[in-house]
């Protein structure tokens, strides 16, 4: 039996189409999508310190490219509730301040780690966009709201332990609203702290 060239051509076209459909099928389905919560949900285990830091760094850097699309009177905002202003949070805040975030508000518990005091002092001294407030008691629900678009939620944990967390890119507005309202409520009970007061703050 001789090969028919038209048959080979049809086979090649069919194979190409199959590959295209296969690629679309594999990469189309985003398993991290959930319509109730957001477009991209990422789970970080307690050991994924580097991964969760990079995820937030990339998120912050991503705003830079979208900055031109955002109204210039609407500066980038970062709202944070943490147990204590630790080294991990300091890195994120510094990165955000260096990437044109115009308003960064951090609400923390009454204590910090003693060795972080100088670093917090320097941060508050250098970046005027950073506002640090403390609550009378350590909050147990910790989260970050990146410009009312993305969320980073931590599992409740003690001050000396690290647990899992979740990052949500393009979180649903209803979910953002719940966290935003909670942030506003917490803000009413928080007291702003100056850089000098940080040096006399209680510490672990």
């Amino acid at each position: 039996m001789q090969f028919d060239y038209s048959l080979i051509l049809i086979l090649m076209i069919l194979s190409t189409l199959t590959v295209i459909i296969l690629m679309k099928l594999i990469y189309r389905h985003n398993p991290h999508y959930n319509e109730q919560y957001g477009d991209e949900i990422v789970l970080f285990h307690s050991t994924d310190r580097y991964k969760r830091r990079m995820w937030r760094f990339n998120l912050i850097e991503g705003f830079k490219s979208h900055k031109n699309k955002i109204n210039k009177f609407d500066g980038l905002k970062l709202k944070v509730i943490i147990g204590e202003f630790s080294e991990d949070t300091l890195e994120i805040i510094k990165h955000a301040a260096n990437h044109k975030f115009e308003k960064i508000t951090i609400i923390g518990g009454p204590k910090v780690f003693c060795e972080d005091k100088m670093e917090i002092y320097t941060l508050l001294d250098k970046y005027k966009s950073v506002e640090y407030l403390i609550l009378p008691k350590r909050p147990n629900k910790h989260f970050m709201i990146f410009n009312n678009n993305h969320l980073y939620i931590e599992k409740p944990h003690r001050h000396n332990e690290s647990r899992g967390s979740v990052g949500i890119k393009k979180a649903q507005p209803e979910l953002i609203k719940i966290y935003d309202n909670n942030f506003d409520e917490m803000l009413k009970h928080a007291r702003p702290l100056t850089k000098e007061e940080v040096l006399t703050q209680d510490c672990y």
Partner: protein
Amino acid sequence: MDISSLIPEFLVLSLAGSSLSIAAYSSFKDRSDDQKLLLIIASCFIFAFLIVLILSAASLDNLSIYQYSLTLIFYALIYMAILSIIGFIIHRLRVDQKFKDDELQSAIDIIESSKDGLESSVSLFESENNK
């Protein structure tokens, strides 16, 4: 053209392709869609190997009973090995999907538990203030 002269090359190519794809799959540390694609590439190679194997069997002739029975055993063993690889690929794809679904569920559990306790954390501060 004698197709039987091409069969050994086809066999080697398809088997090498499937082995390379599975080796590439194993080298990925993170579970991702790229891994899934590699498994599908591996299964394409394996199916190609299966077709060439059947073709080689079909082009056999003039065999003695002794040769025929040994060839049959050989083909049966190869067929079993291929089915196992296909089974492994399907199993991996299902396990990967389950892992992703479980991860998403754990993430949703964290969000839900965090969301549920938000109001009580505010009311705690409110009651403290009222005192």
